[in-house]
């Protein structure tokens, strides 16, 4: 028996001596995000972090349609899968109040990371909770907003230009207003181009996650929709369902009815990319994050594609996309995760991030005089980031979002009721949610 014990100890000692250093073996961080082009760019960028720190990076990328389900479940179950998370901007309230994210103020102070180095809209949108207070739960990581792409080659065709000018008395050019956009979309709808039937516009209609809300808000904001009375927080009657908001919603439906491809009843980001890449639509609503990939596309990219920011109506806004990067409070690798944040916040790293296809929020990148001309969509990105608005980022974000998805989809796609009825119902739903939250009496 004694021989056995001695043998076991000798074997264990041998194995321990032969093992690589504990540091190199155990240090690995898992970063969770959506599966899309910028995530691949981040994986590439993170190789520099591994080289410098010796900490290996592992990535969990989940498709957008199940992104929220998957990672909100992970957070709610206090899972340890993710050390770092690039979570949606609207999650910040819930993640902060439920203790899922580490508060970063002290860490930022100790390491000289200043929020004033980042574009203000991204700090408010991705980092702060409560909004407009200096409480930071994330570092702005991926700036994004809704923009538009169009078929520059179609717009440049002499025959189409002449026909459009004759019909509308103006040049066929990227639209400045939503009325112009609809006019152009109607012009292209059902037209045969290169022997193929094409359609006017691609807009979001997805029902299951957040698609139609991310689409319709672009029109609603421009017509004057607000989430609540600025003087009376959470007071929504007459604001959410104001005549202007109703007009905005009616416009979105009219655009959907007149100028989209048949069967586009449940379509979001990927379907938009498919429609544009297959040469089916003249104009496409989508997030800026996809524009580098589209620009490189061999069939519709390069000289064939153009970009423009969300058009204006009575006002000029666009829907905020993008995310901040947070440290998960349940992570056993908190120090290493903070080390990653510190590395990521460096101006040089941010410049490389932009060069690889990510959208930096750092002023060192965005205020560079060469930035607006660095890509064909850089100026439109800057313009858009100056006019962004975001959906509720409350802890009750999920029921608020699902209510809007239902009411808007019911009206726009399923033809149920009027715009006023849809927004009235939305006010009732949101009021009920805020009452349950104790924010309304």
């Amino acid at each position, binding site marked *: 028996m004694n021989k056995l014990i001695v043998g076991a100890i000798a074997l264990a000692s041998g194995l321990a001596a032969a093992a690589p250093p504990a540091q190199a073996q155990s240090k690995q961080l898992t970063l969770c995000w959506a599966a899309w082009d910028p995530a691949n760019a981040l994986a590439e960028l993170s190789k520099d972090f591994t080289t410098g720190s010796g900490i290996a990076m592992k990535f969990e990328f989940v498709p957008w349609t199940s992104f929220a*389900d998957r990672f*909100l*479940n992970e*957070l*709610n179950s*206090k899972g340890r899968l993710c050390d770092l998370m690039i979570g949606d901007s609207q999650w910040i309230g*819930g993640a902060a109040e*439920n*203790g899922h994210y580490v508060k970063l103020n002290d860490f930022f102070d100790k390491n000289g990371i200043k929020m004033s180095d980042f574009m203000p809209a991204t700090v408010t949108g991705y980092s702060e909770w409560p909004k407009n207070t200096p409480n930071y739960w994330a570092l702005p990581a991926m700036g994004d907003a809704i923009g538009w792409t169009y078929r520059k080659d179609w717009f440049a065709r002499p025959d189409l230009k002449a026909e459009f000018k004759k019909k509308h008395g103006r040049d066929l050019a990227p639209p400045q207003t939503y009325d112009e956009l609809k006019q152009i979309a109607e012009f292209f709808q059902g037209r045969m181009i290169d022997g193929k039937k094409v359609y006017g516009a691609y807009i979001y209609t997805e*029902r*299951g996650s957040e698609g139609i809300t991310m689409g319709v808000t672009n029109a609603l904001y421009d017509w004057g929709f607000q989430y609540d009375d600025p003087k009376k927080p959470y007071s929504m009657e007459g604001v959410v369902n104001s005549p202007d908001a109703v007009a905005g919603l009616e416009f979105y439906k009219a655009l959907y009815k007149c100028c989209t*491809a*048949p*069967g*586009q*009843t*449940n379509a979001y980001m990927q379907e938009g990319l498919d429609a544009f890449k297959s040469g089916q639509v003249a104009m496409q609503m989508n997030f800026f994050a996809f524009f580098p990939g589209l620009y490189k596309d061999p069939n519709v990219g390069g000289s064939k594609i153009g970009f423009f920011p969300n058009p204006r109506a009575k006002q000029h806004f666009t829907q905020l996309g993008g995310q901040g990067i947070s440290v998960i409070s349940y992570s056993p690798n908190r120090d290493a995760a903070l080390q990653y944040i510190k590395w990521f916040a460096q101006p040089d790293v941010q410049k490389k991030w932009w060069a690889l296809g990510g959208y930096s929020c750092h002023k060192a990148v965005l205020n560079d005089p060469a930035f607006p001309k660095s890509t064909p969509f850089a100026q439109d990105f800057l313009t858009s980031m100056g006019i962004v608005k975001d959906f509720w980022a409350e*802890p009750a974000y*999920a*029921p608020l979002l*699902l209510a809007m998805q*239902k009411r808007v*989809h*019911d*009206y726009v*796609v*399923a*033809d*149920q009721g009027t715009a006023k009825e849809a927004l009235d119902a939305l006010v009732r739903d949101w009021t009920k949610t805020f009452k*349950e939250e104790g924010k309304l009496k």
Partner: protein
Amino acid sequence: MSQPMTLLPIAESAARVTPEAVARRVRGLSDRALAWLFVSPAMALLLAINIFPLLWTVRLSFTNYRANRPNAAVAGVGIDNYVSILNDPDVWTAMQATAHFLFWTILLEMVIGFGLAYLIDRRFRGHSFWTTVILIPMMLSPAIVGNFWTFLYQPQIGLWNYAAAFLTGIPASSFSMIGSVKLAPWAIINVDVWMWTPYVMLICLAGLRSIPTYIYEAAEVDRASRWRQFWTITVPMCLPFIMLAVLFRGIENFKMFDMVNLLTNGGPGSTTELASITLKREAFEKWRTGYSSAFAIILFVTVFGLANIYVKALNRVKSR
């Protein structure tokens, strides 16, 4: 007689290799205690994964608990969740959509399934091959079925629309099966019928083959027509099997989720939002755990109650 003889040496050798301590303990137990000993692991598992969650769900249904708010205080709300569900027009819309789906899928599956079984039972040449072909949809995963029917229903490239255009002359891209409020409920019914009719056919085929041929021979002697034989022999004798198929499909379709979720996600609007999809949204998207627990209990009681009534009717038919 030979069986105990061969088993005896095995029992003896098993007894020999059983450690004395264990043997002594087992010898001290009664048959009843031994039976409980063997059954108890299964019972424990059943209690842990079935009964306990059910009781826990009942408990949660009387609270305002939210699974995404682990730090929030949980308060009892009495029967508020139940009252609010029963007064929620959206819930009733979902129940109506479920009833529509349930009624038409069961009706169509029974008629077509019985019809196919009746044909296959004729034992024509190649009937085995066709039986296998007919069974293929049933063998597929609902997730795959949902996904590929999404493509089949695609207005511009989908085969369904092309087939419909070929048969009716209506332009293929002029209608969308899963995008139209009028067509979407039929789109999901169509897929379910396509997938599960073979299952009903199998059950009906078992019923048809269980009818003794001498009954038909006696009917022939009595000069009963084929039509008369069908209604007085085939249908009544097959009825318990048909009712069983209705029960199975009824329970399955009442809780239908996967295929519809993938195919339409409840849309357009809320046209195909079945009760299970509403439940999933409340539980795992809105995180109203207490409310959704109450909804789950209501659905459970409904399906359990209806199934019990139905089983009693089935037993009456069988005893005739």
